[in-house]
């Protein structure tokens, strides 16, 4: 490609060079041609002039020769032969020259005939001269005036007329000049012959030629268009008139027989003078004609010269022009070469870039395909139904899970369709769900995420199912271009929820029943107890005297037993109520609860001289009443199980809920656990029993030693467990005990069932 470009560049250079050369050639040729034409024109004009002249000369000379011969024959004077010989070679030369100049006029039969005629004439003239030399002048005359001679002269004259057929102006002028000169000579000769011989037949000849001369002169003047010629002609005319006058007088004299006088006239000085004037005039006319012809020639020459000059002038311009062009082309070529080189370079770079680009594109395409495949895999693998919407709410993509959930077989059934009208058109209660209210549409148009689980979606087959969906707007930069919706069929979950609700209901109902039963039971159980106690008292009051000591003792034991039973029933009721009368969790300030409990136990504390230290206690999610129960039991125990003679010292403190690290593990709660410790300096217990003490009705001491039903700690444990916590104890017999309650700081649902 590069080479082509370069070669295309070179070709024009070659082309231009060729064109330049051609132009030069053309110019030169034109110049040469112009010069040639000029030369030719000049030559031709000159030639033609000369031809014309020659024709005239030839004719004239021929006539002179004839005249000379005839004069010789007439006078017998051989001086005429000298004249003849003098002019004869001139005639030959003229003829030869004419033949050279105008060969075409001399081609052909006519020319041959003319030639033959000429030879014959010469022969006869020579014979005549011989005869004159022999003194036989009359025979010479007979020859020269014979019919044969006249015939040959006519043939010759015809030949000359061929010559004269070339009617161009300057040729004609030249011709006329010759004719005029010749005719004038003829006229003079005729007149002088007449005067010499006294023969009257010369006069008709004279008269014959005279008008021809006039005509020729007039024609010449007319053709010459030149003032100069006209003037010369006029001068000639004047002389001619005088000569004519004199010749006419001479003829008159001859006709009168006075030939001597005629001779005198025709050979007089005046006649010669006039002839000279005439000749001068003629030569001036001839010059004027020549000048005119030259002027024409010059004009033609000038024209030719002009064209040559213009051509010559053009050459430098052309050269300059071509040089400029050439230089421009040269520069252009340089630029082109440079550009071409640069282009090549750049093309190289481009090719390399392209290769890189291709490589990168390939890589990217591969990456894209991989990522696309991954996305596709993700979309098809996930159990969640996912579909995308454009701004009009039409589906742009959907995954297999989506199709399956909605009961469509083919992507095509869903793609491009308006999803709200397809699957989200009606609410769960059957009322139509207008698209303006559609939460998905509203959300993504506002660029907000949305989540709902109380709506239904409609299947292809027509039925609906409860669905939980999340809608996220899709952004390109800051512009929202659509959204992605994921949904789950929560039919099962809803059913499970229903069932859960159902079970919760039943549990609640069951608890209520239980509570009712428990309270009623306890009430009904307590009633006989009251009676026993009441009548026992009555008995004691009224009839104690009537009883024996044993009797009184039995009565006491009975009454004791009944009070124990009452306590037991109450404790059992409390134990049951940890569940049935559980209140919802709320934030409980344990410090406050402790304060109240201590306030309730104030009397006992004072009575025992006990010291109670309360540390920082947190606020936790708990059942307020149960917390009170818990603390009351624990603190009560701490007071109850004091060492004899040792005032109880009770310390209540808590470890912070932040202490998650130590308490993390299964069941770990978000807020962590808090540990509340109630420790005392009481009697303590063997740690062997530390689990048993939390069992219902478990006592480590006889009933008589320390009061209580053995339910206290069981209730505490039940409370702790209800809260999702635990209780444990540590002790050193004789030193004291510590009861540690671990409770979550936060409860997941503040409203317990």
């Amino acid at each position, binding site marked *: 490609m590069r080479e082509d470009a370069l070669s295309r560049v070179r070709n024009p250079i070659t082309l231009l060079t060729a064109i330049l050369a051609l132009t030069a050639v053309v110019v030169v040729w034109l110049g040469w041609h112009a010069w040639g034409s000029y030369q030719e024109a000049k030559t031709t004009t000159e030639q033609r002039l000369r031809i014309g002249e020659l024709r005239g000369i030839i004719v004239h000379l021929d006539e002179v020769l004839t005249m000379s011969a005839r004069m010789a024959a007439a006078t017998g004077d051989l001086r005429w032969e000298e004249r003849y010989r003098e002019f004869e070679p001139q005639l030959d030369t003229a003829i030869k020259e004419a033949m050279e100049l105008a060969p075409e006029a001399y081609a052909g039969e006519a020319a041959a005939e003319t030639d033959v005629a000429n030879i014959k004439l010469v022969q006869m003239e020579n014979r005549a001269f011989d005869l004159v030399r022999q003194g036989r002048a009359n025979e010479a005359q007979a020859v020269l005036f014979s019919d044969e001679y006249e015939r040959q002269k006519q043939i010759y004259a015809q030949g000359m007329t061929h010559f004269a057929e070339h009617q161009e102006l300057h040729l004609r002028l030249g011709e006329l000049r010759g004719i005029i000169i010749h005719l004038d000579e003829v006229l003079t000769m005729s007149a002088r012959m007449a005067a010499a011989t006294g023969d009257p037949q010369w006069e008709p000849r004279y008269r014959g030629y005279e008008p021809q001369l006039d005509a020729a002169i007039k024609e010449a003047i007319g053709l010459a268009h030149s003032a100069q010629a006209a003037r010369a002609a006029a001068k000639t005319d004047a002389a001619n008139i005088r000569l004519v006058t004199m010749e006419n007088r001479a003829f008159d004299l001859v006709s009168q027989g006075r030939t001597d006088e005629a001779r005198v006239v025709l050979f007089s000085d005046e006649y010669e003078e006039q002839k000279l004037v005439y000749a001068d005039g003629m030569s001036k006319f001839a010059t004027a004609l020549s000048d005119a012809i030259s002027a024409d020639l010059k004009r033609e020459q000038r024209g030719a010269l002009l064209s040559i000059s213009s051509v010559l002038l053009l050459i430098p311009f052309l050269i300059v022009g071509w040089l400029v062009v050439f230089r421009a082309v040269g520069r252009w070529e340089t630029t082109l070469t440079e550009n071409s080189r640069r282009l090549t370079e750049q093309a190289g770079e481009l090719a390399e870039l392209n290769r890189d680009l291709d490589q990168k594109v390939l890589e990217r395409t591969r990456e894209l395909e991989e990522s696309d495949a991954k996305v596709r895999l993700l979309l098809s693998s996930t159990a969640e139904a996912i579909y995308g919407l454009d701004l009009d709410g039409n589906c742009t993509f959907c995954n297999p899970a989506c199709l399956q959930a909605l009961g469509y077989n083919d992507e095509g059934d869903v793609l491009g369709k308006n999803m709200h009208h397809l699957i989200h058109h009606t609410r769960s209660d059957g009322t139509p769900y207008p698209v303006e209210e559609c939460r998905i549409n509203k959300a993504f148009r506002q660029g907000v995420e949305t989540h709902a689980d109380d709506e239904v979606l409609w299947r292809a087959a027509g039925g609906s199912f409860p669905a939980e969906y999340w809608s996220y707007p899709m952004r390109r930069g800051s512009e929202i271009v659509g959204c992605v919706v994921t949904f789950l069929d929560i039919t099962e979950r809803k059913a499970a929820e229903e069932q859960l609700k159902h079970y919760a209901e039943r549990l609640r109902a069951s608890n209520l029943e239980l509570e009712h039963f428990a309270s009623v039971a306890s009430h009904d159980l*307590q*009633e006989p107890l009251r009676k026993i106690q*009441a009548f026992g008292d*009555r008995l004691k*009051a009224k009839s104690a005297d009537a009883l024996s000591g044993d009797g009184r003792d039995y009565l006491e034991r009975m009454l004791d037993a009944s009070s124990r039973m009452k306590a037991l029933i109450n404790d059992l009721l409390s134990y049951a109520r940890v569940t049935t009368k559980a209140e919802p969790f709320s934030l409980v300030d344990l410090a406050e609860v402790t304060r109240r409990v201590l306030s309730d136990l104030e009397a006992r504390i004072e009575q025992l001289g006990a010291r109670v230290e309360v540390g920082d206690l947190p606020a936790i999610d708990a059942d307020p009443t149960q917390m009170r129960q818990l603390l009351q039991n624990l603190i009560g125990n701490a007071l109850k199980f004091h060492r004899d003679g040792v005032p109880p010292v009770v310390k209540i403190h808590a470890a912070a809920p932040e202490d998650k690290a130590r308490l993390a593990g299964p069941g770990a709660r978000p807020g962590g656990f808090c540990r509340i410790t109630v420790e005392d300096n009481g009697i303590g217990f063997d740690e062997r029993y530390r689990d048993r003490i939390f069992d219902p009705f478990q006592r480590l001491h006889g009933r008589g030693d320390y009061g209580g039903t053995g339910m206290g700690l069981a209730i505490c444990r039940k409370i702790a467990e209800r809260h999702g916590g635990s209780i444990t104890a540590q002790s050193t017999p004789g030193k004291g005990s510590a009861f540690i309650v671990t409770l979550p700081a936060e409860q997941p649902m503040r409203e317990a069932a």
Partner: protein
Amino acid sequence: MTEDARAITILMAEDDPEDRMLTKEAFQEARLANELRFVEDGEELMDYLRREGKYAQPDSAPRPGLILLDLNMPKKDGREALKEIKSHPELHRIPVTVLTTSEAEEDIYRSYDMGVNSYITKPVTFEGLVDVMKTLKKYWFEIVDLPPQGREE
């Protein structure tokens, strides 16, 4: 102090016969001279107060100046009866003291909510009961002025 407090009839609604017996004895121990009438359940109580049913006959149901009301009774329990009494245009004026084994906070709250005049949890011991009676006598008949009875006839 009410004029002639001794003339006031005290009506007790109590289903338990032993409790009735004990109360009567406690009454005596407390030297209350007032007439103590008993009804056994809420229905009887309302019949008595409205003088309907078996108390339709005039003079069979002298208007009580104080009602002692047990909450847990068959047929109609004390809570319902209390409600009825305290919404009755005439009967609501009669002071009602709930005397019950139930110490449930809810019962206490509900009773006051319905307008009971006082709530006493039945003492466990007989002495306690006697004390309550003595206190009742002192409070209701010596300290407190009761609404005049005359106009309601």
